[in-house]
């Protein structure tokens, strides 16, 4: 399964994607990303181990991520490879979800605002 969902301290969720998010991979992450979108508010999507992604996989990420943003949540992307980052920037997804290289910075970016 190319998606693992981890709950971190402070109400933060880390979604770890891995391997090839191709046609088959996109089908595998589609439902979990939809669930994340519907249930989480502070999410880091870790792309470190993603070898390949195209628009079908991005679509799953965008739909889940936009659902989070629509309820005033926060979503960032973490450490895509250069090839994956090229797909992300070409498609404009980085305008929606900022890319971070450092995990702690990514976690800080999605942390809930102080009450």
């Amino acid at each position, binding site marked *: 399964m190319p998606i693992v969902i981890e709950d971190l301290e402070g109400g933060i969720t880390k979604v770890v994607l891995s391997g090839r998010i*191709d046609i088959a991979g996109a089908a595998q992450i589609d439902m979990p990303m939809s669930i994340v979108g519907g249930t989480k508010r502070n999410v880091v999507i870790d792309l470190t181990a993603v070898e390949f992604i195209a628009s079908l996989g991005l679509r799953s990420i965008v739909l889940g991520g936009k659902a989070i943003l629509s309820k005033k949540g926060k979503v960032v992307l973490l450490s895509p490879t250069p090839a994956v980052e090229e797909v992300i920037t070409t498609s404009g997804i980085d305008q929606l979800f900022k890319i971070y290289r450092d995990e702690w910075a990514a976690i800080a970016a999605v942390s809930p605002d102080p009450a």
Partner: protein
Amino acid sequence: MGRHCGSEPRPRLSGMAEPDKAPEVLRITTAAADLARLYPWLDEVAGQLGISDPLLGRMHVALEEAVMNVVMHGFDSPDGQEILIRLAAGPALTVEDAGREFNPITAPEKTPPPGGEPGGLGLKLLRHYCQLTYRRAAGRNILTMHFDANPA
């Protein structure tokens, strides 16, 4: 008429494929299980041309976009429709289908996120990763993707 899942032998490209190598033409259908054959086929035939990453990765992205355009928009009932894919020296990938007419060169790009929906991402990626030529002949879309052999 054979079944639609086979690969079709074609005249070999000069200086490359031997008789025991994978054919440069792949015949698949729009069925989900069949689409997974795209990637191993491309790996194999591209390997015969000496193609590897990063060019191979760019070809994977573009081929997925082109094929998924056919699957998602080409037919009212997409199940089991045939798609023909051909690799030629250059390298160039040609995707041929009998779906509704669609020219990705002239088709308008949708607004990308955050304002737009993610469904329009494919055209941006296609145009970024390769040069496109398109023609409509005998009721078929024939899209050829020409790749830079030495991408940055």
